[in-house]
């Protein structure tokens, strides 16, 4: 095609560093922590918070009843072999939830960290996997 302005990752990194210097705003991830933070102890995921995250971001498509395309599509896919409403599933792992949220599936788009932060995603994974974890205990 006509244009391909090549800009390396190093240049992009420079932008972030200078911005931080200029405004006091560091290169942040979606949770307000430095992207380079290492081995910081994380609070355990909170399924109650995860329920709120799920209701805000997911239930408009995956909720119960008519008018929820995600649920409608899974109904056809599973044909009753598995619940079509994600909240009714007992086989979901936090890792599977995270995969679909960050990558999307079919018409479902991926969700960015500015939308669902990593912390929110961990909470939501814990919520959707709550029955699975109870079984494991």
């Amino acid at each position, binding site marked *: *095609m006509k244009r391909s*302005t090549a800009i390396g990752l190093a240049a992009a990194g*420079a*932008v972030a560093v200078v*911005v931080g210097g200029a405004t006091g*705003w560091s290169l942040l991830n979606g949770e307000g922590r430095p992207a380079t933070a290492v081995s910081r102890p994380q609070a355990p995921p909170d399924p109650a918070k995860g329920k709120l995250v799920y209701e805000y971001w997911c239930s408009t498509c995956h909720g119960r*009843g008519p008018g929820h395309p995600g649920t409608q599509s899974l109904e*056809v896919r599973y044909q009753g072999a598995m619940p079509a409403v994600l909240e009714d599933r007992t086989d979901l792992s936090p890792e599977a939830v995270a995969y679909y949220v960050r990558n999307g599936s079919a018409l479902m788009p991926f969700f*960015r960290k500015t939308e669902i932060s990593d912390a929110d995603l961990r909470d939501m994974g814990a919520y959707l996997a709550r029955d699975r974890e109870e079984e494991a205990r």
Partner: protein
Amino acid sequence: MPIRRSGASRRSASLPRRWPANVEETQAIVRIANDTSIPIYPISTGKNLGYGGSAPALSGSVVLDLKRLNRVLDIDEQNASVLVEPGASYFDLYRAVRDSGAKLWIDCPDPGWGSPVGNALDRGGGYTRAQFRNHFDAHCGMEVILPNGELLRTGMGAMPGAKTWQQYKPGFGPWIDGMFSQSNFGIVTKMGFWMMPEPEACLIGRIYVDRYEDLSALVRILTYLENAGIVNGMPGLGSPLLQRRVPADPQSDAPNNASAVDQTVHDAFYAGDDAARALIAEQVKSTGRSCWNALVKFYGPARMVRMQWELSKEKFSEIAGVRFAEPEFYGFPLSDTDLEKIHKPTFGIPSLSIFNFGIRTPLRPEPLVGHQAFSPVIPRTGEAIFEVNKVFARIFKEEGLPLPPFNLPGCVWERTLMMICVFPTSKDAETNRKYRKALLRLIAESAKRGWGEYRTPVAYYDAVMETYSFGNHALRRFHETVKDALDPKGIISPGRYGIWPRRNRKADGAG
């Protein structure tokens, strides 16, 4: 790559994203981009599915994600207006208005996860009264970061301490707001919108006609009623015989093509000759389904909407044999039963149910993985609807693609029609290539007939801008002059809507 879904440009490999949380941080990024000549591509909620998603037009651009600027800054019930940031979604605005207790309705497009600011800037539309469903027209005042990092307020907002920023649109001097829609001249960080006060009632009327040739009169009368202010909600056209439902039918949220329709009937609608009309008449008789239907919506006091429906019926009665269904009448708040079955955006409620158009169904075991929309603006006549369908069908046939069902346009905008064709994106590269080729041909062939796109996926920006060529591309050259003056380094969204900065333009001036 996920960013290529939904019609994004193949050039669109973006760098890691940066996430400001307020205007000052966004300004700082713009200044740095200017200092380093690195192009940035601002997005609001980053959806825009069907028109390119969050993908930049220029490979290598840094996506500037404004999602964290997500506040609803003001809700003024008496003025029926709001002031919002670009990262707030229609769901956010709906919740904020409800929580405030203000008796105001939002006007939203079908996907409620989008941004009122982003959608208005892309000149999207909704479903309620004309002055609100045209989202850009509904705005009143904006705040913009210019490419040099300066902050500009338009309209009355240009006056420090203005009391009427969300009351009077133009302010003083040239009204420049339009320059920040479908462009790359600045980054809008605040936008005011006028809202509809919650109506006492909504009445939905349905009109049925049986003859193929009745479409022209149906469209003519519908248009008159809307222009005269009698029909004040979004009207719609459908065909019961083809099982093409009216878009946004409050009683049917089921997608089109949920059940198969005999292709010979569609072929007859395309052909429209004597033999075809005879077949259609026979089908109308044998199935009991009418050939066409229209749907009209009225918002206002109960007594008034009933009167408007009576006046509309009188006018539609000019068509011989016209029939009317018993109107549906809605008061507010809606009952739980109504909420389960209605098309929510018709009632100012955001939803995501539109995505049932591409999900897995018994007739479509493999769901779509994306889509791109081809949306030319066409004249508001029955003749134009027939002609557009014939031209599009011929191109699909010549490109070796399955013949689409006979399509009816949307009546989103006043005085014109919009023929929205949704092209599926599949996992088969060859099929996708065929659709892209067909879409480019449709853009060019439509332009030859005077039909132009209102909006397009990123990959077709240049092809569409190429068709707006009056005066040896005077419009594009004007855009380029403005771009070079405001953004000499070309850092904001190069290529967006076919506007390229000097450093990215070819010698002949085209993008």
